């Protein structure tokens, strides 16, 4: 009898642990979800993303002039970003991201293509970090090319790899390393 009771206790104990773990996971998931929900509505972040993708496409097409134009536009949309609706901690982080991204976008707006690509690398990190906070309504693919500058990532709205760091020289270099939704 006492053995059975102990067994039961042990079983219920592990069950409880499992449950707690599951609850925990679930909690995390729920949090992520709500995070995405309230941030899905940030039109200004979407505008930044849209300019970023225009810039990326111009680099894929080896088009310095278009990339520079997209860079100029991006500077404007970045500066128009409004952090008010975010928590204090996120506001600080976002302001930091925006400040950094503006600098890179400015350089892109006035540089030759090699330089544009250098700055695009850091800019991509900034934008990825921004999306982690703001969320987005579209599905994004974080892609990665192991060859450019010891490995470089970028964001794309399409699964298909088109490399902005090499353009036509090595268009297909890279793979999807993460899906962001």
């Amino acid at each position, binding site marked *: 009898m006492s053995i059975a009771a102990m067994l039961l206790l042990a079983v219920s104990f592990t069950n409880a642990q499992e449950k707690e773990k599951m609850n925990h996971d679930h909690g995390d998931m729920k949090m992520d979800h709500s995070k995405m929900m309230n941030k899905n509505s940030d039109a200004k972040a979407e505008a930044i993303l849209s300019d970023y993708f225009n810039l990326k496409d111009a680099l894929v097409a080896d088009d310095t002039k278009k990339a520079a134009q997209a860079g100029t536009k991006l500077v404007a949309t970045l500066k128009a970003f409004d952090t008010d609706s975010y928590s204090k901690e996120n506001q600080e982080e976002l302001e*930091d*991201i925006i*400040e*950094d991204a503006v*600098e*890179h976008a400015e350089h892109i707006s006035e540089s030759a293509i090699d330089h544009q690509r*250098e700055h695009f690398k*850091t800019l991509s990190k*900034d934008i990825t970090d921004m999306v982690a906070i703001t969320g987005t309504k579209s599905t994004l693919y974080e892609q990665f090319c192991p060859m450019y500058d010891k490995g470089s990532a970028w964001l794309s709205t399409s699964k298909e790899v088109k490399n902005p760091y090499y353009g036509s020289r090595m268009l297909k270099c890279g793979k999807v390393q993460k899906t962001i939704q």
Partner: protein
Amino acid sequence: MKIVKIIAIVLLVAFVGIQFIPTTRNQSDTVPSTDFMLVNNVPETIQKKLQVSCYDCHSNNTQYPWYNKIQPVAWFLEDHIKEGKAELNFNEWDSLSSRRKASKLRSIIKQIENGEMPLDSYTLIHSEATFTEAEAEELINFITQLKDSL
């Protein structure tokens, strides 16, 4: 012939005239506690190199050459220093966030790698500011380490 003379006189008057236009000088006695050298453990050789090759335009204190008071040279210098400090001011290093530091370090590496800094117009007169291959490598290794430790 007369025209040439007139032009020469006009140019001379203009040259003398612009000497009276004041410029702001980039000089400071104090090194703020946010200085790159003070907050990072920078090896002595690299400290010296940074001071000679970078600090004239990327800090609050420029070691001016003798001709800096002659216009239009002074303007040219003023402009460069202003732009240089806006991009990167080593004196204010520690006031940057980690993200900004990483960005700046990455840019330093690229500029040295591509031989874009120090500017040709600077090394023309400051030949000691030029990086030898070994010096460039030493600096890039140090900066890379610093970046990875952020």
